């Protein structure tokens, strides 16, 4: 499977900005730098769209534009929380007005498949359209479906994306679970392990191809997930097996991109990669959220294409292992090669 294009709406302005001056955030969360949506979406439609729909649609349209593709054979999204703002709006009103005087607008846009549905509507795309909503596997499931569809010769191209938003209510709730540190400094997040991470959000979309095109960003050799592995060595052995399947060894990996999030407990799980291989991480740029690996894949794709690594001088990686876990429950490894 080849990555023809990758576009993101994230707490960073662009891949280039990671070299010239990455955006830093203080406190508990990172927030998306939103583009001028009028360059992606009809202004009449924008007014009716909630923020997550706009972020997802803009990233989708940008990735299609970069790929020079009008109609993908499939649109597949992953979102753990779905359209939170509309869900919160409808639920709050339902509580406040005791199930009376409700309007359907927020309910209509609260369903998890709204982003994928709106993209189909915008493109007038009648092809396969699916939405995965499985916590820290939402985005990986979407990628896996694209892979199985290519395997069945049902499609040759797919638009695949991961999207999640922070809203005040969701943040007020999640912070009660003790997930976040009080006075975070995002760009130092990974360098200063402590209790808690910083919350993040974003939309990252990809045009995937069964075959290489002249301008593919990278080749996605493998994606593998592990649910609640019984011991740390389950993932380590799984990655060894993944490399073996690809006919390569650890020494063939030029760079490891990890999902380190600064939480001391979470980050010990990444120490299994303390090998003599350069390592970088991505959550200092996007924060922690269930579909953050979509941002990680966006970053990794551009690293391979442009042959330069933010924060690491002079490295020109040809093969990258991207590894992430979400709350120690959902583990995912990606193997990518330069084209």
């Amino acid at each position, binding site marked *: 499977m080849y990555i023809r294009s990758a576009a993101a709406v994230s707490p960073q302005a662009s891949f280039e900005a990671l070299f010239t001056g990455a955006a830093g955030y203080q406190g508990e969360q990172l927030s998306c730098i939103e583009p001028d949506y009028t360059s992606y979406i009809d202004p009449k439609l924008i007014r009716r769209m909630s923020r997550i729909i706009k972020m997802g649609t803009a990233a989708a349209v940008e990735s299609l534009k970069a790929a020079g593709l009008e109609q993908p054979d499939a*649109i597949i999204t992953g979102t*753990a*929380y*779905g359209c939170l703002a509309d869900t919160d709006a*409808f*639920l*709050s009103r*339902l*509580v*406040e007005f*005791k*199930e*009376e005087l*409700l*309007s*359907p607008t927020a*309910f*209509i*846009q*609260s*369903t*998890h*498949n*709204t982003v*994928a*549905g*709106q993209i*189909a*509507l915008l*493109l*007038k*795309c*009648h*092809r*396969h*359209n*699916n*939405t*995965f*909503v*499985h*916590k820290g*596997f*939402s985005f990986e*499931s979407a990628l*896996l*479906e694209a*892979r*199985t*569809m290519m*395997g*069945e010769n049902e499609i040759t191209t797919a638009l695949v994306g991961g999207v999640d938003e922070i809203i005040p*209510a969701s943040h*007020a*709730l999640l912070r*009660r*679970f003790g997930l976040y540190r009080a006075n975070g400094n995002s760009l130092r997040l990974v360098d200063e392990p402590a209790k808690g991470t910083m919350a993040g959000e974003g939309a990252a979309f990809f045009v995937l191809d069964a075959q290489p095109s002249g301008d593919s960003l990278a080749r996605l050799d493998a994606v593998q*997930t592990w*649910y*609640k592995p019984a011991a740390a060595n389950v993932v380590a052995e799984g990655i060894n097996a993944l490399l073996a399947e690809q006919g390569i060894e650890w020494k063939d990996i030029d760079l490891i991109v990890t999902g380190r999030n600064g939480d001391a407990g979470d980050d010990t799980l990444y120490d299994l990669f303390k090998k003599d291989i350069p390592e970088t991480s991505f959550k200092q740029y996007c924060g922690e959220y269930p579909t953050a690996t979509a941002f990680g894949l966006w970053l990794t794709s551009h690293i391979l294409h442009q042959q330069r690594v933010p924060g690491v001088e002079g490295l020109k990686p040809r093969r990258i292992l991207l590894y992430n876990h979400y709350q120690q429950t959902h583990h995912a490894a990606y193997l990518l090669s330069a084209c």
Partner: protein
Amino acid sequence: MSAPVYISGTGVITAIGNDTATNLDALRSGSAGMGPIRWLETRHQGQLPVAEVKSSNEMLAEKAGLPAHFSRTSLLSTIAAKEALQNAGIPDLEKWRTGFLSANTVGGMDKTENFYPAFLQNPAAGRLREVVHHECGAATEITADALGIQHYVTTISTACSSSANSIFFAARMIRQGLLDIAVAGGVDALTRFTLNGFNTLMILDSQFCQPFDENRRGLNLGEGAGYVVLVSEKVAATLANKPEVQLSGWCNANDAYHQTASSPDGTGSYLAMQGALKKSGLKPCDIDYINLHGTGTQNNDVAEGTAISKLFAEAYPPMSSTKSFTGHTLGASGGIEAVFSVLSIQQGLIYPNLRWETQMKELPFAPVTTLQEKKVEHVLSNSFGFGGNCSSLIFSRIN
């Protein structure tokens, strides 16, 4: 021809029964599951009929072997998925790579909506155990953990077509050699959120619904869960009870017309049914029964009916909406109706479309109104939803 994927077990819980056998009895006897609201706490009690599973959370929790404070979604899901796996009777389950691929639209909303009143007053208030299972994926993981399934878990949410999509994603994973066994389908519990949501859309029937009737007034919401166990040829060879049914075709298409309404000509429905036929290599005349999406709304039934009249004009197969029994169970409907489709082939049954009275003026065909017993080789099952999501599945007898 790619490797076949067999159905080796079914599990279902709906308003018409707590397992496959009782659902089948009700389908045979024509007993609908709608009634006044009993378990859901809502101001619409006494006004809107719904098709509730006839058990309190405590009763369901005992059956599922889970705590009663867990979301109703997770309780229903676990009961039906356990039945499916038991029914499949796979020896040495642990030696295979087994996945649980579920679907739902509400997640733990039934608990979140109890949490929210206190939380809205004060963001530090409310018991966290009421929201800890809010996400759609939570119900899936509770069930997977109860079943001891670890190799692969995922959850799909495409409104009312959700669980049809999980079933054929599972089939593809088996065909691609990524899994040996998959428990696939979906679940949804009734919540105030969905009841009020559909009520604001003014598509709820205050009487028992009448799908595909000229005078239909809307849908009745239901709840439940339905799962099938899909196995590879290799697994099927080890089973004492040889599977009789396979999943032979599927397609997901998008109407790309409106966020909630179907296009008048049923473009998405047509493409989904046509695509599923193409995948299975069957012709329209091979289909012995269509399990309709048939919600009972003005919009769905005319769009679905128009698409059927374009595709099946040569010879209309018998068809019916079993939502006239179970109500519209949203994210569970594709899974529940997959179970009914498998039973249709196994038992040689075509279920009646209950309460049908008047021919729709736009359509040249009518649904089946009485139980028919005949040999059934191929069943087409439709599931369409918000966001333009349309999916069709074809189940076939293994010959």
